[in-house]
C-alpha cells in the first residue's frame, strides 16, 4: 500500500470515500439523529472525536497486536474510547446527552470506526491515522449536518433550534415565524428521502463531469 499524502487523505474522507454518501456506512445514526441540525452537529462532532481518537489509539498499538488478536483488541480500545467520550458529554453537556442518549454509545457500532481501524490505522503511523480519522469523521459530519439542516428547515421552518440550550451556542438559532411545518421531513422517511436526493445529486454531478471530460 503506497502512503497517501495528507491532501489525499483529506480528500478521501470528505469526498471520494465519504462514509455517508459513498460507502454508506454508519447509516443508523445518520438516519436516526438527522431530524434537526443541532442533534446532527452534536453527534457529528462526537463521531469526529471518536474516529480521531480510536484511529490514533489503534495505530499506536498496531505493532503490539498480532493479526489473530487484532480485531478483539481494536474492539476493546474503540469501546473504551467511545465510553470515555460519552462520560465526558454527560459531565459537560448534560442536555445534549439527554437528547442524543443512546446514540452516543452506539457510535461504537458505527462501522466506519472499525472499518478505518482495520483498513487504515492498523497500517499507518499514529499521526496519519489521526488525520484519516479526522477526515473520515468530518466527511460523516458534513453529510449528517446537511441532512439534519434540510430536514429541520423543511419540517419545522427553523435551523439550529435549541443550539443555545444544548450546545451553549445561542447565536446559531434561526426560526421562520408562522411556518406550518411539514411532518414528512421530520419522520424517519424524511431521512431516507433527503439522503437519496444527496446521493442522486452527487451521482448526477459525477456523471456529467465524466461525460464532459470524455467529450
Amino acid at each position, binding site marked *: 500500500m503506497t502512503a497517501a499524502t495528507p491532501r489525499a487523505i483529506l480528500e478521501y474522507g470528505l469526498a471520494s470515500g465519504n462514509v455517508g454518501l459513498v460507502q454508506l456506512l454508519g447509516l443508523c445514526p445518520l438516519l436516526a439523529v438527522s431530524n434537526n441540525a443541532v442533534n446532527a452537529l452534536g453527534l457529528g462532532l462526537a463521531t469526529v472525536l471518536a474516529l480521531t481518537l480510536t484511529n490514533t489509539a489503534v495505530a499506536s498499538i498496531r505493532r503490539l497486536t498480532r493479526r489473530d*488478536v487484532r480485531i478483539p483488541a481494536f474492539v*476493546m480500545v474503540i469501546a473504551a474510547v467511545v465510553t470515555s467520550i460519552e*462520560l465526558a458529554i454527560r*459531565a459537560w453537556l448534560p442536555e445534549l446527552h439527554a437528547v442524543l442518549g443512546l446514540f452516543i454509545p452506539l457510535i461504537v457500532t458505527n462501522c466506519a470506526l472499525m472499518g478505518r481501524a482495520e483498513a487504515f490505522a492498523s497500517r499507518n503511523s499514529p499521526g496519519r491515522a489521526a488525520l484519516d480519522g479526522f477526515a473520515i469523521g468530518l466527511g460523516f459530519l458534513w453529510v449528517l449536518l446537511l441532512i439534519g439542516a434540510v430536514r429541520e428547515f423543511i419540517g419545522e421552518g427553523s435551523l439550529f433550534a435549541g443550539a443555545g440550550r444544548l450546545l451553549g451556542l445561542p447565536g446559531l438559532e434561526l426560526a421562520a415565524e408562522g411556518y406550518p411545518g411539514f411532518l414528512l421531513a421530520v419522520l424517519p422517511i424524511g431521512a431516507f428521502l433527503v439522503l437519496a436526493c444527496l446521493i442522486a445529486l452527487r451521482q448526477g454531478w459525477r456523471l456529467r463531469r465524466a461525460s464532459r471530460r470524455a467529450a
Partner: protein
Amino acid sequence: MKEALRESLRSGVQLALAALMATALLAGTFALTRGRIAESEHRARTDALAIVIPAGRYDNDLVADTITVAAEPWLGQPASTVHRARLGGRDAALVLSVVAPDGYSGDIALLVAVDRRGRVVGVRVSGHRETPGLGDDIEVGRSDWITRFTGRSLGDPDAARWAVRKDGGDFDQFAGATVTPRAVVAAVKRCLEFVARHGDALYAAAPGATLRIDSAPDDYRPQ
C-alpha cells in the same frame, strides 16, 4: 506443540494488555467525570421539579428530601415519588408523581405540587399518549388549560364541581376530547384528597423511606 502453546500465550498476553489499557482509560475518565455527572443529574432533576414549584417556595434540597409512596388507589401507580418542599425548616409543599390511569390511550403521568393548606401550586403533564390535536391540549406547550388548577383546592370548587363542564363541573373539556381532561381532573382531585388525609404522614416520613398506605378513595373501583 510447544510452539503453538507459546503462540497462543503471546496472543493472550497481548489481548490482556489491550484490556488493561482500555480499563485504565475507562477508570480514569470515570474518576474525572463522576463528580460533574452527579452534579448535573442533580441539577436536571431539580429543574424538572421547578416547573411545578417556583424556586422561592422552598429552601431545602428537593431531590434529596424524597420518599416513595405505595398508594395505588390514590395515585394511580404502584410506587410514586414524593418530594417534600420545606421553607425555613417548616413544611411548605409536597410534589407528587401521579398517574391518571383512565386517559383516552392509557396512562397520563402528572407532576402535582400541593402546598400545606391543600392548594395546588402547579400541575404539569410529564408523559402521555393522548391523541395529537385533540387530547394533547393538556400539555402546557399547547394550551394553558393545565395551569388553571393552580391555586385551586378541595373547597374551591366544591367536591361535586371538581369535574369537567360536561359532567357538571368547573373545568373546561376540549372540543372533541372529554376523556382526557376528565381523567386529569379526577387524578388531581384524588391527589388533593390523598394529601388532605395522609399529608402529615408524608411530611413526617424519613427521607428515602417507603411509605405504604392501604386506604382508598370512597369511590375507588379496582380495575
